[in-house]
């Protein structure tokens, strides 16, 4: 049985918000675990690619399959673990109707930026960048979560952001299938192997298999093969498998470390993969963020501009759409919080890098999209600035 941390209603929050004195050390621990390794890899990559391009691109080329298609499986497995746990009592997705408003609103936060991106990109003179449109739909859950916590602390806006991001990223996965990057899609191969993967996971679950290895290696392996040979993104192999892993009865909260003594399969999976996933993130930044700066064209700006203009607008339109369906925002969330949240959602970073890489093949188009993904980190400053201007979150006048 997993060690379960106390959860306060109405939403599960990690201990980072427990006591003011303890908040920031835990926040920085969280930042070190989830946020600093990828930027570190990205900075090394940028310096390396612009000083010794031959050795950088040669190394990145040799590593990219291992990192992007294999190692990142662990990272997305861990992100999915957060979602799976959120469906447990005390979690943000429990009961599931709680997710209805973010689900509808995410249509706005994903699709409006895609439309704006498609509309403005030709004016930057590089029309082919539009082919990376799935990268505009998504947001960096971990980075955005950190910024939202810094701005709002304990506030209903936090689970709303996480649910919005997860939902928008799910739309991004669907967009990858539609975009069909890298060649023809083999739906027959995908469906056959994915059915075998899900059947295996179900069988393991029904037989009360408590170890996570059979789920990861057998079901995950089949899922990976289905995605890879079907022409889809294999790094998402554990996403459909992780929900089958037996997990704790209550949600410990987003990005809260499983206790070392936890025995449920999902917690053991997290304990085992935590550090390898961090190495994967570091390598992901290293392999993918090396952009030759002098070769960049003005088109680089189309992605961050589309995000900054359209994410806040898309969120407000999405919430309006949800309201039209009779859904209501949680208490204490008004238009000012939504605007700030919209800017938090402009941080694409890891997610945008990953989806851009999955959506288009290597080359200058991808380089421009990657640079746009790196620039989207500036959304953090915009969110902080908007919060200060609108006097909300930590800047509110009490």
């Amino acid at each position, binding site marked *: 049985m997993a060690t379960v941390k106390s959860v306060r209603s109405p939403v599960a929050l990690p201990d980072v918000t427990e006591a003011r004195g303890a908040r920031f050390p835990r926040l920085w621990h969280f930042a070190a675990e989830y946020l600093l390794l990828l930027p570190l890899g990205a900075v090394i990559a940028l310096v390396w690619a612009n000083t010794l*391009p*031959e050795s950088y691109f040669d190394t990145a080329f040799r590593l990219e399959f291992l990192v992007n298609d294999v190692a990142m499986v662990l990272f997305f497995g861990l992100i999915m673990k957060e979602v799976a746990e959120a469906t447990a009592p005390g979690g943000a997705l429990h009961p599931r109707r709680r997710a209805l408003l973010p689900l509808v609103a995410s249509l706005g936060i994903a699709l409006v930026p895609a439309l704006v991106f498609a509309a403005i990109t030709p004016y930057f003179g590089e029309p*082919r960048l539009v082919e990376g449109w799935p990268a505009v739909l998504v947001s960096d859950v971990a980075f955005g979560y950190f910024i939202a916590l810094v701005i709002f602390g304990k506030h209903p806006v936090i689970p709303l952001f996480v649910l919005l991001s997860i939902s928008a990223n799910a739309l991004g996965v669907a967009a990858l299938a539609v975009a069909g990057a890298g060649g023809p899609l083999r739906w027959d191969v995908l469906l056959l192997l994915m059915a075998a993967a899900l059947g295996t996971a179900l069988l393991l679950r029904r037989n009360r298999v408590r170890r996570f290895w059979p789920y990861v290696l057998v079901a995950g392996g089949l899922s990976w093969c289905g995605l890879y040979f079907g022409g889809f993104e294999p790094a998402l192999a554990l996403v459909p498998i992780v929900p089958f892993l037996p997990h704790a009865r209550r949600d410990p909260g987003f990005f809260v470390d499983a206790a070392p003594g936890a025995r449920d399969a999902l917690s053991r999976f997290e304990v085992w993969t935590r550090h390898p996933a961090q190495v994967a993130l570091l390598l992901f930044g290293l392999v993918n963020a090396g952009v*030759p700066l002098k070769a960049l064209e003005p088109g680089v700006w189309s992605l961050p501009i589309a995000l900054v203009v359209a994410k806040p607008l898309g969120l407000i339109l999405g919430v309006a759409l949800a309201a039209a369906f009779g859904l209501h925002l949680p208490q204490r969330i008004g238009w000012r919080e939504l605007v700030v949240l919209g800017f938090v959602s402009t941080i694409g970073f890891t997610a945008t890098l990953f989806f851009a890489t999955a959506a288009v*093949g*290597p080359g*200058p188009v991808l380089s421009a999209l990657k640079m746009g993904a790196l620039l989207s980190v500036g959304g953090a400053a915009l969110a902080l600035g908007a919060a200060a201007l609108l006097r909300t979150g930590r800047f509110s006048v009490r």
Partner: protein
Amino acid sequence: MRRCVSAFGVIALAGLLLAAGSPTDLPNAPNSLKLAVLGDNGTGDRRQDDLAAQMVAAHKQFAYALVLMVGDNFYGSQKPADLEHKFARPYRPLLDAGVVFQAALGNHDDISTIDYAPINMRGQRYYTFVRQNVRFFVLDTNILDAAQLKWTEAALQQASEPWKIAYFHHPLYSNARRHGSNVDIRVRLEPLLVQYGVQVVFAGHDHVYERLKPQKGIHHFVTGSGGKLRKGDLEASDTTAAGFDDDNAFMMVEILGDDLHFRTVSRTGATVDSGQIRRMAPRIGS
């Protein structure tokens, strides 16, 4: 830096002097394959028109049947009227004379232009075609995805023609300051080109003309000044064989048996570089 500029000046001057002394440096043989190479041309402005006029004039003496376009065939708006203005209008005399244009995609080209019939891409981002004893490989380096690399390797493997020429937009080697060599593309593509014996590569993107010394046995040309020009952008290095960044230019190429002859002509009609490449035993000289 100053030394590099001076070195480049000497190279350019030597090219111009040589050109002045040998105006008919192409064999112009009756059964040879004659073609022109053009890049970064689709501006629709005066420079493109002037160079097109030079191409038309050259065609009267050197009747090339084919034009290789290395991308950026159209800048800015690419509606049907723009395609007419930026392509069909300036090259009308050549089109009327039956010259066939075969284009690659540049970073400024809209993907929809692959369906524009006069540039003969036939809806393909990358494709191959044969003329006489030469197999051409036209690639889309904007997005060099796994499927394209796989196709390229298969096409190279199957090619039995003695000459193999690849062309695409982004140069694997370039000494221009603005963009320079695209190393990301190079590490993926060059091993295939070397393995399957491609002899010549034409690219654009940098708005200059540059001929590089053979790299791993392949002769690389940057011909990105067919309409755009980035004056003074070329910084000659030890890999530069010749260059010209004072004005727009296009190339005329003649393949006769085991020899490829080339001549690069500026907007004013001056020959700015010329030479010969011999197949199997690479040798190049001006």
